[in-house]
């Protein structure tokens, strides 16, 4: 099945700094989903990207889908302590044989 790789595994930032996590696939993705999991919590859906080169924004979060639909990124501007958690990308395939596949996640630690 699909493999989605995420980097970095951990990221420490000072509050106010920016943060980016990257998601890469060896094969073309139909679409990609991003989830956030707070410490001790469960994954919560953030967004889905479908189109090649798509860029979507949610307040301080910017999501991008690569032109080849093999990679994606999540960028947070001016991090806050409420951004702490693990961010997962997931293959959200919309056709054919499909096993939902999550990346390993990037854990964001924000230091006040």
């Amino acid at each position, binding site marked *: 099945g699909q493999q989605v790789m995420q980097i970095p595994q951990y990221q420490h930032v000072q509050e106010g700094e920016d943060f980016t996590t990257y998601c890469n696939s060896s094969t073309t993705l*139909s679409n990609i989903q991003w989830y956030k999991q707070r410490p001790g919590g*469960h994954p919560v859906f953030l967004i*889905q990207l*479908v189109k090649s080169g798509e860029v979507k924004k949610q307040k301080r979060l910017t999501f991008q889908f690569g032109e080849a639909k093999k990679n994606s990124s999540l960028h947070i501007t001016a991090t806050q302590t409420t951004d702490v958690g693990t961010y997962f990308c997931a293959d959200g*395939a919309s*056709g054919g044989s*499909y*096993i939902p*596949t*999550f990346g390993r996640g990037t854990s964001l630690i924000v230091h006040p």
Partner: protein
Amino acid sequence: EAGVAQSPRYKIIEKRQSVAFWCNPISGHATLYWYQQILGQGPKLLIQFQNNGVVDDSQLPKDRFSAERLKGVDSTLKIQPAKLEDSAVYLCASSFGDRGYEQYFGPGTRLTVT
């Protein structure tokens, strides 16, 4: 709307014992997923149901794990007998459809096998 419900929230058992988890998805969601999340990793799909039929169970260790969704609503996941490596959080999720739809996760069951 009510979210995905799971019980129990925590379970501690000894190896070789059996355990069962229950999940009630969001009303109207046809697709139900069971995931295993080991500490420090992303959720790994165990089984996916569409209504009461199995869509995929290729990653379910069928020698010890079983799951059912008899009436196409709630579901149970069972482990018998448990091994130490089964210690993980078991997440249930549901979605409106089976592909390309956002998944709503329950709070999970944290299983510790001693």
